[in-house]
C-alpha cells in the first residue's frame, strides 16, 4: 500500500524503534511552546482571518470562512412566513441531535417538560458519535477535581471562564456515574476500577474510555434513552433562524424540512442551541475529522439574535488526522494511540517531540516537522509524520491494539495497512471549535433571554485550546445542565407574539457596513457536489 519512498522511511523508523523503546522524549518548556505556536499553529496565520464588521464582537478576529457566513444575510430575509401559524409547540425546543442535545432532552423530559428535538440529519449524526479516545473525570484516588481544573486551565492557556471550568470538573464524576447508570459500557477491570489513561496535557490518568468507540457508545445509549422516553425527534429538519417574542426573548425557531423545502414554525418557552461545531467550513483548507453537518449553524443563528461569541478565533487542529491513504484523509486517529505508547516520529526515524503534549502544541510541532525542518514524508495530498503504532503491541503485549483501539485497526485494514506491524502517517486535521457562544454557568446565553446553549457551539469552557476527553465531558455536563435549567425556566414563561425582527435589523447593519453580499446563511450542508474531495 505504501510507496517505495514511504517504505524506505518505514525501515528507518524500525531501525530506531529498539533504541526509542523505554525512553521518554523531553517535554517542552512554556517558552518553547509559545514560540512554536506563534510560528506554526494555524491560529497565528494573520491572512486566514477577517475582522467582524457588525454585532457584539465587531472589530474582533474571526476565521475567514466563518466571517463570510456572519457577513451574509438570512435565508428568511425575503421569505414570507406566517408566524401566527404555529406548526409545533414545546416547552423546550432543542436544536441539534448530538450528545449535548440528547443529554438536555433526557434531563428536560425527566424534569417534566414537554421537549422537542430537531436535527438537520439524524439523531446521533454528530461529532459526539465520532469521539474516539475518551472522557475525563477526576475519580481516581490520586486525582481531584482541582487537579483536573489545573490541567484544563493551563492546557487552555489560562483563558477558560473559571465559573464554566469549575462546573466542568466538579460535575465530571457525576456525569460518568449518570452515563454508567444509563448503561454505557466503560472499560473496567474485573474489580470494577475504571481503566484510565493519560491524554495530552493531563497530569493524572483520568481518561475513561469505551475502547475507541467512546463517543459512539455514549451517543447510541443517549439516543436509545431519548427514544425510550418517547421524546419527539424531528429529523432532516434544520433550524434556520431563531424566533423572538415582543420582549426580545427567544421563543422558538423557523425550521426547514431538508427534503421538501417546507418552512415550519416551532414555538417554545425556552430554546437550547446544541448545534455543534464548524469543521465542514474547512478553515484554511484543512481536512476535517468532523461529521457532515458541522457547518457552524448555531453560531450564525445565535450571533444574528444578539449572543456574543467568545474565542471564535481559536480552532483546534487535532495533531493526528489521517495523512494517508487519501480515501480517509483527515479522519481522526485517536489521541489514545499516543496514550497507549505510540511515538511521533519523522521521516528519519527520530522522535521529534513528547507524544503527549497538548493538541495545539503537537499540531504545531508536526507542521514544523513537515515544513521548516523538511522531515515529513510525502503523500499524494501533502505530507505527514509517522505514528509508530507497533510500539503499542511491544508495550502492552500482542493484541493490545485489537482490544483497545479496534476502530483504528479496522479503518486502516480496509486499505491494507496493518497498524500492529506498520506505523501510520498522520497530519493535523480540523477537529474542534474552541470558541463559540458565550454562556453563564447555568447555560443561558448572554443577552438573549430564554436561550441556552450547550456542547461545541459554546465558547469559554476550555479557553483557547481543549484537552482530549474534555469535550465528551462538556456535552454531558452542560447538556444535562441546560436541559434542567430550560425545563425549570419554561415553567415561568408565557410566550408572546413571535417575530423575526432581529434578522431585519441585522440586514440593515450589514447593508450599512457595505456587506449585504450574495449567498445565504446558515450554510446547513457543505457544498461538495462535483468536487473530488
Amino acid at each position, binding site marked *: 500500500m505504501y510507496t517505495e519512498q514511504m517504505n524506505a522511511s518505514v525501515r528507518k523508523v524500525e531501525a530506531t524503534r529498539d533504541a526509542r523503546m523505554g525512553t521518554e522524549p523531553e517535554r517542552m518548556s512554556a517558552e518553547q511552546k509559545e514560540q512554536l505556536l506563534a510560528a506554526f499553529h494555524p491560529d497565528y496565520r494573520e491572512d486566514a482571518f477577517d475582522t467582524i464588521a457588525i454585532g457584539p464582537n465587531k472589530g474582533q478576529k474571526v476565521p475567514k470562512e466563518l466571517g463570510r457566513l456572519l457577513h451574509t444575510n438570512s435565508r428568511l430575509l425575503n421569505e414570507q412566513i406566517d408566524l401566527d401559524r404555529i406548526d409545533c409547540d414545546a416547552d423546550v425546543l432543542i436544536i441539534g441531535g448530538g450528545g449535548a442535545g440528547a443529554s438536555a432532552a433526557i434531563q428536560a423530559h425527566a424534569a417534566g417538560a414537554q421537549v422537542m428535538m430537531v436535527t438537520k440529519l439524524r439523531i446521533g449524526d454528530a461529532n459526539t458519535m465520532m469521539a474516539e479516545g475518551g472522557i475525563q473525570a477526576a475519580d481516581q484516588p490520586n486525582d481531584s477535581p482541582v487537579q483536573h481544573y489545573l490541567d484544563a486551565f493551563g492546557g487552555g492557556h489560562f483563558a477558560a471562564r473559571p465559573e464554566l471550568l469549575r462546573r466542568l470538573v466538579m460535575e465530571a464524576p457525576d456525569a460518568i456515574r449518570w452515563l454508567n447508570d*444509563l448503561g454505557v459500557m466503560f472499560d473496567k477491570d474485573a474489580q*470494577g476500577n475504571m481503566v484510565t489513561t493519560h491524554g495530552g496535557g493531563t497530569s493524572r490518568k483520568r481518561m475513561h474510555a469505551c475502547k475507541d468507540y467512546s463517543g459512539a457508545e455514549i451517543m447510541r445509549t443517549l439516543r436509545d434513552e431519548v427514544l425510550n422516553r418517547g421524546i419527539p425527534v424531528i429529523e432532516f429538519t434544520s433550524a434556520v433562524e431563531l424566533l423572538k417574542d415582543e420582549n426580545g426573548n427567544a421563543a422558538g425557531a423557523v425550521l426547514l424540512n431538508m427534503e421538501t423545502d417546507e418552512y415550519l414554525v416551532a414555538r417554545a418557552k425556552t430554546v437550547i442551541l446544541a448545534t455543534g461545531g464548524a469543521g465542514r467550513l474547512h478553515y484554511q483548507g484543512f481536512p476535517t475529522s468532523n461529521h457532515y453537518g458541522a457547518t457552524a449553524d448555531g453560531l450564525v443563528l445565535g450571533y444574528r439574535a444578539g449572543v456574543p461569541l467568545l474565542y471564535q478565533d481559536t480552532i483546534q487542529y487535532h495533531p493526528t488526522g489521517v495523512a494517508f491513504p487519501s480515501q480517509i484523509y483527515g479522519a481522526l486517529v485517536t489521541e489514545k494511540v499516543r496514550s497507549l505508547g505510540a511515538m511521533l516520529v519523522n521521516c528519519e526515524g527520530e522522535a521529534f517531540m513528547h507524544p503527549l503534549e497538548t493538541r495545539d502544541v503537537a499540531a504545531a510541532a508536526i507542521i514544523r516537522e513537515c515544513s521548516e525542518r523538511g522531515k515529513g514524508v510525502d503523500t499524494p495530498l501533502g505530507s505527514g509524520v509517522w505514528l509508530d503504532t507497533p510500539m503499542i503491541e511491544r508495550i502492552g503485549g500482542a493484541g493490545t491494539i485489537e482490544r483497545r483501539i479496534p476502530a483504528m485497526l479496522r479503518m486502516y485494514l480496509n486499505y491494507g495497512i496493518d497498524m500492529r506491524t506498520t506505523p501510520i502517517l498522520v497530519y493535523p486535521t480540523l477537529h474542534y471549535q474552541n470558541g463559540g457562544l458565550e454562556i453563564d454557568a447555568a447555560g443561558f446565553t448572554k443577552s438573549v433571554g430564554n436561550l441556552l446553549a450547550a456542547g461545541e457551539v459554546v465558547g469559554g469552557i476550555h479557553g483557547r485550546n481543549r484537552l482530549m476527553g474534555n469535550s465528551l465531558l462538556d456535552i454531558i455536563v452542560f447538556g444535562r445542565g441546560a436541559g434542567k435549567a430550560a425545563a425549570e425556566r419554561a415553567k415561568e414563561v408565557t410566550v408572546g407574539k413571535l417575530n423575526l425582527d432581529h434578522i431585519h435589523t441585522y440586514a440593515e447593519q450589514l447593508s450599512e457596513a457595505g456587506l449585504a453580499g450574495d449567498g445565504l446563511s446558515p450554510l446547513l450542508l457543505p457544498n461538495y457536489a462535483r468536487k473530488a474531495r
Partner: protein
Amino acid sequence: METVNIYLYGKKYSVPADLTILCAMEYAGYTLKRGCGCRHGFCGACATVYRIKGKNELKTCLACQTQVQEGMYIASIPFFPADKRTYEINALRPEQQVMMQLYPEIYACIGCNACTKACTQGLNVMQYIAYAQRGDFAKCAEESFDCVGCGCCVMRCPAGISHPMVGLLARRLTGKYIAPESKHLTERVAEINAGQYDELIEKIMQKPIDEIQELYNNREIEK
C-alpha cells in the same frame, strides 16, 4: 487520473478510481441529504448495497469506508425500518426473559448467517444473537460492541430480527447491571456532593494568573 465506471442507481458515471463511494457520488454531482452522516465509519448512515457487473453476489458496505471499483452497481439505503422496542431501563433486570419479552423474534433465527455476511464491520452477528438467546448479555455486548447500526444485517434477515437493537439492549444491561460497580467513582461523587472540594476549587479559581501558571508549569505528571 485513473477513472472507473460506476452505476449510481443504475446510471453510469465515470469517477476517479481512488474515491470512496460517498465521495464518488458527490463527484458525480449529488448533494447528499440522506445516506451521509459522520463520513468516517462511526454512524452507520451510509449503508449501501452493490453488485459488481457480471457477478451475482450482492454486497453490503458503508459508502464512506469503501473505495469504488470498476463496474459497481450502487444503491444507497436512505432509511431502513429497523424495529426498536421501548423500555424503561431501570425497570429491567439482566435476565434471559427480558429478551424473550422485548425481542422474541431472535428465537426464530434459522441460522442462515446472512446477518454476519452482511455486516459492514465484520462482526459475528449470528453469534451475538445466539448469546442473546441464551441470556448471556455480557458476551452479546462484547461481540456486538463495534456495531455502528447501519442496518445491513436487518435488511438480509429472513426472521425479521433487528440485530443492532438486540446488541444495544444487551450492552445497556451489561453496562448498567452486569459490569462491577466502580467504587472509586461512587466515593468521589459522594465526596463532591458532600462539599469536600468546594473550598479547594474556590481557592484555585481565586489565584492570580502568575501563581497558577507557576503551579501548572511545575506540576508533577503521573508516570
